[in-house]
């Protein structure tokens, strides 16, 4: 870690323990979040990216189970492991230190409560005074690009884009240090997506917070993230500064993923990745990508590849690299 590290995930593993099988959703993931940084986490469905996001707020519920590892948060009162926090400490930590915009932000507002009440209750919970809360609601809505009269609305009276902005206002309402956006714009149209993301990034700069951006859209990550983690089958396949990931991808999965998306820039024919991701409820021998990989060789079948440095700050979990 460096002095500016604000959160550190160390060797984190999460299982979903079902009556008939156990799904290893996240295995041995480590990553750092620095102050003011935008971290991208990309992966396809089932790659474990949303599960990972849940652990940052210790929101996993049955049948999710933390198998090991730490989520260390460096707060103003020193460092602490989020996963070991007592309920009262955890409640203080949630939203005040780390807040989140959810995958289906369309459904993350309570349909029977007014917007102002949903924004107000969390501020009161985190110690803001009544009159302060009232002002802050207006201020936050305005930051998110909404007008004051939204506060009296119920969620069903707002459009998708407006709801998403309410979620941004809500997420920023207690001055968090880290904001997690989990597929926050997936359901939106591209023009609205861009409006919302540019505003979010601007707010991130103005309020100097860190942003963890989780998505399946690798192009989107390229446009906004400083560092990128590519997840596959519950593991980080490759991680590094975003220009390196896109200019010289190392892991065969990252390469194949980039080759599978059509680009407006160059005329190329795209190629899908054959096969399907491995079943995470079964024991995987060797590299999880081996059955779909074009560069597979003997070692991949038996030995699990560790993340190894391929250049400064750029890591790949592949036997082709490192020793």
């Amino acid at each position, binding site marked *: 870690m460096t002095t500016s590290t604000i959160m550190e995930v160390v060797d984190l593993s999460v299982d979903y323990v079902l009556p008939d099988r156990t799904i290893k959703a996240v295995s041995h993931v480590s990553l750092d979040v620095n102050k003011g940084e935008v971290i991208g986490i990309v992966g396809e469905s089932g790659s474990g990216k949303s599960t990972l996001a849940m652990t940052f707020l210790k*929101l996993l519920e049955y049948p999710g189970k933390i198998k090991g590892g730490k989520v260390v948060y460096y707060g103003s009162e020193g460092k602490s492991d989020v996963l070991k926090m007592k309920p009262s400490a955890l409640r203080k930590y949630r939203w*005040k230190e780390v807040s989140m915009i959810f995958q289906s932000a369309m459904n993350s507002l309570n349909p029977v409560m007014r917007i102002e009440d949903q924004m107000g209750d*969390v501020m009161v919970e985190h110690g803001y005074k009544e009159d302060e809360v009232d002002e802050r609601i207006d201020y936050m809505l305005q930051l998110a690009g909404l007008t004051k009269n939204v506060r009296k609305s119920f969620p069903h009276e707002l459009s998708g884009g407006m709801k998403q902005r309410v979620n941004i206002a809500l997420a920023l309402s207690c001055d968090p240090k880290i904001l997690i956006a989990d597929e926050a714009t997936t359901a939106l149209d591209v023009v609205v997506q861009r409006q919302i993301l540019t505003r979010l990034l601007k707010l991130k700069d103005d309020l100097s917070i860190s942003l963890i951006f989780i998505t399946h859209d690798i192009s989107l990550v390229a446009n906004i993230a400083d560092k990128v983690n590519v997840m596959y089958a519950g593991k980080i396949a490759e991680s590094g500064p975003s220009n390196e990931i896109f200019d010289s991808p190392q892991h065969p999965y990252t390469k194949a993923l980039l080759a599978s998306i059509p680009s407006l820039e160059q005329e190329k024919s795209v190629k899908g990745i054959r096969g399907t991701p491995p079943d995470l409820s079964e024991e995987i021998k060797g590299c999880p990508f081996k059955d779909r990989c074009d560069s597979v060789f003997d070692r991949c079948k038996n030995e699990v590849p560790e993340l190894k440095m391929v250049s400064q700050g750029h890591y790949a979990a592949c036997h082709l690299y490192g020793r």
Partner: protein
Amino acid sequence: MITLRYLIRRTIYMAITLFIALTLVFLLPRAVPGNPVMDVLLTKYAGRINPYQLKIIESELHLGGTLWQQYVGFWGSLIHGNFGPSFYYYPEPVSQLIMTHLPWTLFLLGTSLMISIVLGIFIGSYSGWKRGASDSFLQGFSISLTSVPYFWLALIFQLVFAVLIVINGFHIFPVAQGYGITVTPGTNLPFVLSVLRHSALPIITLVITSFTGFALLMRNTVVTVLDEDYVLLAKAKGLSDNTIRKQYVNKNARLPVATSVALAFASIVGGAFLVEVVFSYPGIGYVLYNAVTVSDYPLIEGIFVMITFTTIIANFIVDLLYAYLDPRVVLK
């Protein structure tokens, strides 16, 4: 939100329903070959009602003339709240009889429904929130209760608590009737206590057989709501469990329960009637039972009309309540 337009539309709709129900009541005895009403009058009540009175009844019940004349006359009487005289209690009018006995049934129905809903929401919410042991208990309990006939359970309770168990020569609950023979009806304490004691077993029966429906529904919606993103967000916000449960879970989960009350009302009416019969409780159900036994057709019809009317009003109130609970509903 409720608009005037909605109120008008709704009133028209209620009127149509009532119209159909009443027309059914009118047509039914006339569709059966050989006018059962007159048959009964001429055979069963031959000695009790003299030919002169018979003529009056025939005109009051609009049994003569063309079908259309009968129909018009039928409506004319109804608008004046006149269902004709009861055969059995002749010449007491049916409306009078209903008015005497309706309060008893409303008390029984209202109290049991209220207790069932509150109990159901409370237990269902707790059980859904906790899942686990209390949950499977609720499931098992309701599975064995859903098909228990109200009146059979009433008979069991009557047998056990009013007949078999005797403590120091006293029974826990009385076998039957609405109040004891020693008290005088009126606003005096002994009467009120007696009424409460007499209604205890009927109410317990109705509550036990009907609350599980609400509880199970509430439990299932709580479980669904718990999986909603807004509950997850509420947790992420660091809100206390208490706030999450009250503001985020229960407020949403009780909505389907509110809709189910209307349907439950229609079904619990039948249960209440049968239970009244078991306990000889002086409500509408018991009167209806007696009316059926003695083929007192005007009384049967009058009770049906009145109960239909009550149910329609109850449905309307539930709809208004629903609009009040859910801001997304616009009654327009």
